[in-house]
């Protein structure tokens, strides 16, 4: 008994010491021939799907770049930090990478709240920081080192209003949105643009992003006799809303933002997904050969269809690589030179041509996408 306890105490002490040593010694190991970037993303927990897709996309692009000889013979390396969707852990990750002088840029997180916690740190460390989502307006122009490959929320809502006007010609719509910054941002922009188009917003209802049962909200929608149901969802909640709406016999068109555009949406909504229309940055059935070759490679490596996060991650890696090349042409790649090169980005990727405006945002048009026979296709 006593022996056991002593052993336990010994083991615990050892673990503790090693842990401290590990933390303290983390700043070393500056790679001689490697260009290192880092990613902070939820790789476990509720939001892991986005983080993992983003990671997969970047990894695929990194392998290709390295196979093709890297940047002037230097290989690219990516380090990962799992923040489990917790801003506190995201801040710790950003700090960890900011300390490591050899790290040139940081990607992530997918979640606005985590990114908000990271930006003060990356800004202070003058570390280029790039994301593919985190579309809250609070991040617009927050730091000269922050580059966002996403259209911020207060533009996306407007684009959805355009879709409703152009393609459905609705007179009266209802909006359901997750009660977070994303949903609220969409609401603001949707509301004003609908007014411009002369479309009435019968009501807007917030729900929790983790909700699974929407029958109550949908019952209320049904009672309002509207022409279209606009949702501000990502695929899990959006898929469930679609499924439950159709199960209730609600037949009006469903319109959504980029978040619906994932194979998981069709998986969750099943047959109910047919005919839903949403915005997309990237479509796997896009006949463009560049897109097709990406889809093929992605499927081979990860065994599933790429979603928007994967495609944007893939492009993001190339944007970073192009910027590194630019910087390398002028001398050694540093955080500062990489930031300068990033700001001038003009890269034609599979999701469009990436450029950043003065506020570090990517202003771009979207595709209209629909589901037919369980497959995504462009909406004519």
């Amino acid at each position, binding site marked *: 008994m006593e022996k056991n306890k002593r052993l336990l105490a010994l083991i615990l002490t050892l673990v503790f010491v090693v842990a401290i040593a590990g933390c*303290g010694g983390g700043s070393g190991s500056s790679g001689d021939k490697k260009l290192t970037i880092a990613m902070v993303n939820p790789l476990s927990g509720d939001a892991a799907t986005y983080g993992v897709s983003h990671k997969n996309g970047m990894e695929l692009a990194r392998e290709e770049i390295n196979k093709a000889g890297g940047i002037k013979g230097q290989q690219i390396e990516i380090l990962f930090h799992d923040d489990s969707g917790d801003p506190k852990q995201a801040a710790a990750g950003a700090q960890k990478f900011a300390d490591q002088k050899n790290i040139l840029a940081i990607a992530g997180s997918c979640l606005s709240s985590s990114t*908000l916690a990271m930006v003060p740190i990356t800004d202070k460390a003058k570390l280029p920081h790039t994301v593919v989502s985190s579309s809250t307006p609070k991040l617009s122009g927050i730091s000269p080192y922050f580059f966002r490959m996403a259209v911020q929320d207060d533009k996306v809502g407007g684009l959805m209003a355009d879709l409703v006007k152009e393609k459905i010609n609705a007179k009266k719509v209802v909006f359901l949105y997750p009660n977070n910054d994303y949903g609220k941002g969409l609401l603001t922009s949707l509301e004003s643009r609908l007014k411009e188009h002369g479309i009435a917003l019968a009501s807007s209802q917030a729900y929790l992003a983790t909700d699974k049962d929407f029958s109550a909200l949908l019952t209320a929608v049904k009672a309002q006799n509207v022409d279209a149901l606009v949702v501000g969802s990502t695929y899990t909640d959006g898929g469930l809303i679609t499924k439950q709406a159709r199960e209730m016999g609600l037949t009006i068109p469903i319109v959504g933002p980029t978040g619906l555009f994932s194979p998981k949406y069709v998986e969750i909504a099943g047959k109910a997904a047919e005919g839903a229309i949403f915005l997309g940055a990237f479509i796997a059935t896009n006949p463009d050969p560049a897109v097709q070759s990406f889809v093929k490679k992605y499927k081979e490596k990860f065994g599933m269809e790429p979603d928007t996060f994967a495609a944007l991650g893939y492009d993001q890696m190339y944007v970073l690589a192009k910027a590194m090349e630019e910087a390398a042409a002028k001398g050694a790649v540093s955080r500062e030179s990489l930031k300068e090169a990033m700001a001038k980005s003009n890269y034609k990727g599979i999701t469009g041509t990436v450029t950043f405006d003065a506020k570090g945002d990517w202003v771009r048009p979207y595709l209209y996408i629909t589901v037919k026979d369980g497959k995504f296709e462009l909406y004519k």
Partner: protein
Amino acid sequence: MAVVAPPIVKWRPNLSKLLGGPKAALCFSAVILFMTWVDSLALTEDYIFTPYFKHILFVSLIYSVATLSLNFVSGYIGQTSLGHAAFFGLGGYTSALLTQVWHLPFWPSFLAAGLVAAAVGVPLGAPALRVRGPFLVVVTYGCGEVFKFIALNLEITGGPAGLPGLISPSLGVSFAHIGPTGKEAFIVAALALALFLAFLMARIEDSRVGHAFAAIREDEIAAATMGVNLAYYKLLAFVLGAFFAGLAGSLFVHYLSFVSPDTLSSNESIMMLTMVVVGGARSIPGSFLGAFLLTFIPEGLRYFKDFLGLSYDPWLVLFGLLLIIMMRVRPQGILGAETVFRR
């Protein structure tokens, strides 16, 4: 209670006494202060202790305060609370709102954070007068969850993304501008808070209040017949715990310059309770140990994970196992007294 009485081990009481004494506190502070300031003295280009290390150090100290304050409830009066993060987060939100919306300076808001948390400690502690044991666990848990939902849904708390851009505390100079990394002053403040609380608790233990707590913990009914005012002392424990948790929360969110509903989450409460349990309930050095262990180990594991090339983070799986083993081998915690739980 039918616990198999462990053989009396001489070294442990001695160790506890040693670690609980003022000398240990002095050594501990010296080590922390050394790690914090050595970079400012040395004139090297690279950090000896990186900002990341200091970040972890600060978080450990903040959790030490939270763990110590949870000890009022879970240690002294022996009631398990799974809602402690509610006080922590409430303090954070209070000072965030006071400084951001009403533009108060940091220090009054800091104090207000503690007071508001303490005030809320009364209604949250009230159920403890009627229910206890497993029922109190779920009541405190439920209250904590309700607070999270309020923070998620209110307009003024910024919803799920929280409130960014909080001011940094200052003493003439803003904390963020003191020292090479801007974290040094925060560490000193957290250390001061933790030491003050530890000192206070050490004094309380042998006072009238401490004896009343002990009486309630050991046998409520007997304590009541002896004339101990149960309601008063139980609420006092909650209020004291809430006050210090609120202070810790306030300092923490101003350090991050950001507060979000995650600060209030039940996972945080569970983590705080675990720190108490692992370190040992009612043990002051145990609280520090629990907080430091459970903050440093997961960060250390990340290096093992990278080193071994694992694609996932094993921490939470191991954490679960650790708790199970801990309860089997040493249910009273590493530095805990021999009997902690009541049946």
